């Protein structure tokens, strides 16, 4: 199909294109056109019984606007036939009739096409209801200017065939033009408005009924009172414009038009002039004002409603966007929460796993009393202690502190603990075990990982302790009578720092009843709220105070003191203690 939108000769509805459809369309338009011509006959005013409004013009313009130039034949034929009252006149011969009415037929076609062209040009549309400017274009162009074209041609035809004398050309022209213009303004607009919105929903039906009832009531009141109360039509028109849009306004205008013409014919109302022409002029001006006002109101109201609707739609869209964004964020949060909960679960598992590799039951080790505890600062710890039996009834004791905290430290801790224990179980001397562990950790170790550790072998029967302190906090020995001594470090670096390093082993004897207290710097460097540290001095003080108690009691009081010291702060580091007492032989 060719793009026809821009063409003057295009049907706006893109309707049927077949010949049969074309004929049918023309027949329908012809019927309506003729009917519109017939119904107006009783409304003739004056001796010539001429109607002040010519509805067929409205039908022609509406049909041309809606259906395009396809229906021009119907208009021509309709107008040709509408001249039939002429046949009663004595001077009408058939050729004269044909000539005259061909002229008025051409006038109708020219009028309709002028109306379509001007509306297309000024409003760019096939209906004038969307904007106030379109209403002005419609009334000045499609009604007045188009009617002027039609009226001029029609008057010329009537004059040329002798139906009007020279002296009446002016009057006839004015009457012709204004009747056509009113016909287009009132009935053309009515048809286009209802064609544009054909659906009959409840509000429009109710409004239409109210409008018609209102017009009838006012007309009846006027007929009864015989007062010129036509101004009462104005509120009706306003109601129509506000409530029912172009359809309401055009319906109201048509109803009011019919009512006032009917009244004028009956000699009632303000439009009864001294002559027929006077009545025509009064009625036509009234109809023009009514239609113009109503359509303008409807257009402005329509624009306002459209703006409101656009605003509502915009707000709705904004709300929708906000809702979408909110949903997106919620979804992301949910994913994060799921991830967090997975990590939490993992950490919980790691915590349980880590705790489970630390021994807690020391009852099997004869000749000793042992207590141990590890409190991670985070979910998992970088500290560990270990107690395990060696051959010959000796005990392996270890405590260690991995640099850093959290998962990485915990992993490093587990590796170190396992390595140290398996080295120890080969029966090597502590210095050798530690050197091996150090070597492995140096080789397979990210740059910021290392571990301070003490590994000791205790022979509970003799009290002999062989131990290596690899950069760890100095152990405390308590003699059970309130005396303490620190076992100095001997120059060994932490594990995982210097490869191929030899480690110095120290020996001392744990006398019966003496306790060996091993700890990590989470104890001595626990900060309080003022940033002050717990320090070795405080630890020694507690050791002196509780040195004669059991390892368990000593350990708990140390932990308790550290906790009270750092009350109100977040635990800064893992806190680990391992206390071993050599029992007094029975």
């Amino acid at each position, binding site marked *: 199909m060719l793009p026809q939108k821009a063409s003057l000769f295009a049907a706006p509805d893109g309707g049927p294109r077949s010949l049969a459809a074309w004929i049918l369309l023309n027949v329908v338009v012809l019927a309506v056109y003729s009917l519109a011509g017939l119904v107006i006959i009783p409304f003739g005013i004056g001796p010539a019984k001429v109607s002040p409004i010519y509805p067929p013009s409205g039908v022609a313009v509406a049909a041309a606007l809606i259906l395009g130039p396809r229906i021009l034949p119907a208009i021509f034929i309709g107008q040709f036939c509408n001249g039939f009252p002429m046949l009663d006149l004595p001077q009408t011969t058939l050729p004269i009739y044909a000539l005259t009415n061909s002229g008025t037929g051409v006038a109708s076609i020219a009028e309709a096409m002028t109306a379509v062209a001007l509306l297309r040009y000024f409003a760019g549309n096939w209906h004038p209801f969307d904007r106030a400017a379109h209403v002005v274009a419609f009334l000045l162009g499609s009604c007045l200017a188009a009617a002027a074209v039609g009226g001029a041609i029609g008057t010329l035809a009537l004059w040329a065939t002798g139906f009007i004398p020279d002296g009446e050309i002016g009057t006839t022209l004015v009457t012709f033009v204004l009747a056509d213009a009113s016909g287009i303004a009132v009935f053309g607009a009515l048809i286009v408005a209802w064609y544009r919105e054909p659906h009959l929903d409840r509000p429009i039906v109710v409004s239409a009924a109210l409008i018609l009832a209102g017009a009838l009531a006012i007309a009846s009141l006027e007929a009864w009172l015989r007062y010129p109360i036509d101004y009462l039509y104005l509120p009706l028109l306003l109601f129509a414009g506000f409530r029912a849009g172009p359809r309401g306004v055009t319906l109201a205008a048509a109803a009011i038009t019919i009512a006032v013409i009917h009244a004028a014919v009956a000699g009632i109302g303000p439009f009864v002039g001294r002559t027929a022409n006077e009545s025509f002029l009064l009625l036509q001006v009234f109809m023009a004002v009514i239609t113009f006002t109503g359509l303008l109101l409807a257009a402005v109201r329509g624009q306002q409603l459209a703006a409101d609707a656009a605003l509502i739609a915009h707000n709705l869209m904004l709300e929708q966007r906000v809702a979408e964004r909110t949903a997106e964020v919620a979804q992301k949060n949910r994913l994060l929460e799921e991830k967090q909960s997975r990590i939490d679960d993992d950490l919980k598992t790691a915590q349980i796993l880590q705790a489970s590799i630390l021994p807690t039951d020391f009852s099997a080790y004869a000749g000793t009393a042992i207590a141990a505890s590890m409190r991670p600062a985070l979910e998992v710890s970088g500290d560990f202690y270990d107690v395990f039996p060696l051959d010959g009834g000796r005990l392996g004791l270890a405590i260690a502190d991995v*640099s850093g905290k959290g998962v990485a430290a915990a992993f490093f801790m587990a590796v170190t603990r396992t390595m140290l224990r398996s080295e120890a179980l080969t029966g090597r001397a502590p210095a050798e075990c530690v050197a091996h562990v150090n070597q492995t950790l140096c080789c397979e170790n990210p*740059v*910021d990982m*290392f571990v*301070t550790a003490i590994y000791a072998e205790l022979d509970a029967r003799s009290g002999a302790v062989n131990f290596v302190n*690899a*950069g*760890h*906090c100095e152990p405390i020995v308590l003699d059970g009578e309130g005396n303490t001594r620190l076992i*100095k*470090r*001997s*120059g*060994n*670096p*932490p594990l995982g*720092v*210097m490869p191929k*390093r030899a480690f110095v082993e120290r020996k001392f004897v744990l006398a019966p009843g003496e306790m060996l207290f091993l700890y990590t*710097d989470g104890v*001595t*460097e626990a*900060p309080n709220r003022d*940033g*002050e*540290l717990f320090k070795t001095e405080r630890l020694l003080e507690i050791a002196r105070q509780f040195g004669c108690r059991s390892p368990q009691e000593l350990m708990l009081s140390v932990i308790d003191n550290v906790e009270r010291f750092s009350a109100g702060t977040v635990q*800064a*580091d893992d806190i680990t203690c391992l206390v071993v007492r050599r029992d007094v032989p029975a």
Partner: protein
Amino acid sequence: MEVFEDRLGSATMLRVVGRVDSAVAKLLESKVADVASRDGAIVVDLREMNYVSSAGLRSFIMLAKHARAKNRTISLCAMREEVAEIFEISGLLELFTIHDTVEAAIAGLPR
């Protein structure tokens, strides 16, 4: 504790003042990570560091490990006796080049 930083040619001079313990180790560690990411020798002036705890030592070990990983020399100089002792018993002296004075450390810088 306070740490002052200075440049001497391509070398970085760090001056550590006060106590270095767990309360300030974080600060020293971030300084260390920053310095360690650069090139050039590192000289640490410890004239005014009067105490270093085991947490503080960790920062020094970290510095040494980073320097070693990048093949850079790191010297500690003008250590007080008690601090030197802590480094010694902790087996850390051999991680660093030790100088008695700052001047000696500067003289010892690679040209």
